[in-house]
């Protein structure tokens, strides 16, 4: 097939000027884009208001999609349950018997725990979630991992607040608009979460790998004590994330740490909870010290760099 030849302007001066102007605008657009890029890399929050307005516009579509997702998962789960009903019933009966025994032990432990805490004078502040919302969108084509939340400043969501689902940590809020907010997912490489191993409190931090998995890095060097299946929860250090939220399960042990899968896949959750910042004073102090020390060479552990 021959190339369509409709770009030839002939002798029309107007058409010639039109084509020339097109080139000028295209090259100017390229240069303007490069300028915008430099601005947004130097100051990532520069265009947050425009992005916020844009996600406000797309919010109805995202909410419809989130409802479709929940309904679709329900249908698939129902069909799967039908096929496995008999086997599942037997397995669940066994599990319930075991769980009942466990629950009694847990109740006893809980009572003891409360008593000991009362003795020591520790007051547990009851963490009341800011709001519950749906994830209505995500950057599924980019290597940066953001999601859009269907709640914003009107519901009390502020930048820096952690977001969790029933199963585990999702990320933290980085930009807010009146009715939507942008969440930096745990799998984004900029998101660094201080964690500890559930079994023995081994301190570590997890860092997103942006391919759906996360890297687990240990604070103490030496013999790698990680095992497959180790569960890591947030440790509360840094003051941003409340302690005890499941983050990752180790799936691969490397020589200086490990690779893990998320405890809570954002694709499977229906509703997420936005929690208040665990220790606002600590986060503020860290931010102030960072400002005094100048720009950090790499994202800080508490994630206060935004």
């Amino acid at each position, binding site marked *: 097939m021959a*190339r369509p030849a409709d770009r030839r302007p002939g002798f029309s001066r107007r058409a010639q000027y039109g084509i020339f102007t097109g080139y000028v605008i*295209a090259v100017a657009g390229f240069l303007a*884009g490069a300028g*915008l*890029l430099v601005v947004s890399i130097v100051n990532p929050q520069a265009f947050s208001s425009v992005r916020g307005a844009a996600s406000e516009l797309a919010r109805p579509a995202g909410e419809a999609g989130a409802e479709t997702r929940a309904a679709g998962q329900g249908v698939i789960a129902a069909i799967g349950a039908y096929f496995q009903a008999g086997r599942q019933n037997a397995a669940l009966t066994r599990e319930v018997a075991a769980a009942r025994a466990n629950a009694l032990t847990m109740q006893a432990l809980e009572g003891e725990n409360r008593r000991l805490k009362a003795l020591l004078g520790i007051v547990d502040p009851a963490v009341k979630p800011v709001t519950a919302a749906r994830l209505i969108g995500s950057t599924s*084509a*980019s290597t*940066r991992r953001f999601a859009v939340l269907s709640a914003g400043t009107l519901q009390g969501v502020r930048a820096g607040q952690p977001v969790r689902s029933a199963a585990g940590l999702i990320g933290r809020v980085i930009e807010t608009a009146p009715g939507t907010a942008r969440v930096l997912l745990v799998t984004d490489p900029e998101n660094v979460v201080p964690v500890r191993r559930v079994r023995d409190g081994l301190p570590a931090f997890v860092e997103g790998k942006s391919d759906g998995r996360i890297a687990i890095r240990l604070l103490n060097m030496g013999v790698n004590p990680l095992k497959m299946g180790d569960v890591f929860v947030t440790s509360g250090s840094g003051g941003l994330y409340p302690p005890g939220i499941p983050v990752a399960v180790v799936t691969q042990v490397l020589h200086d740490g490990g690779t893990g899968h998320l405890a809570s896949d*954002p694709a499977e959750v229906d509703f997420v909870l936005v929690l208040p910042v665990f220790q606002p004073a600590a986060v503020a102090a860290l931010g102030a010290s960072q400002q005094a020390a100048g720009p950090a060479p790499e994202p800080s552990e508490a994630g206060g760099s935004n």
Partner: protein
Amino acid sequence: MPFPRLADLQSLPIRPEDIVPQRINRAPSPLLASGLPWLSVMVTSLAAFSPVIASAPVVPPLAFMVFLSWRMLRPSLLPLWAGLPLGAFDDLYSGQPFGSGVVLWSAAMLAMDAIDNRILWRSFEQDWAVASLLMTLYLVLAAAIAGLAAGYPLPLVIGPQLLVTLALYPLVTRAIALLDRIRLLPLRSV
């Protein structure tokens, strides 16, 4: 062995032309004829607001593919500077640092112009090859820019996404060809 051609597949049972029975004294609606390419690219930019909440980059850059398909199918329909507004719109939703789409889409338009000036003949395989080259560059550069913005060299995780993108491109061109027929439906009476 030649590539399997989409043109060899059976055509759709309902053709868009059948929607409008009367063709005499009718012309395409100017709004649809010139607005549909812009609208289709912008709608696919909104693919981020789909039910899929991905924890890894898995979805191909559909908006860029649609943009490239329109440019391949109708070289003069989108003006040379179309990358500026459409790329900026895509940046609002793609999660890339703002400006990355503007730069890459404008560069893609200029590159397509240079390629069109150099290559006199067009064919399916050649269009696919050129699009593959541009889409690969787009994905790699977008990942590099995102890594720069994250202040952390991103691991190369775009492999699966790249393969899906290259394989899906002919289907996208097919869909755009269908949209092109809808675009030129004679809806307006003259």
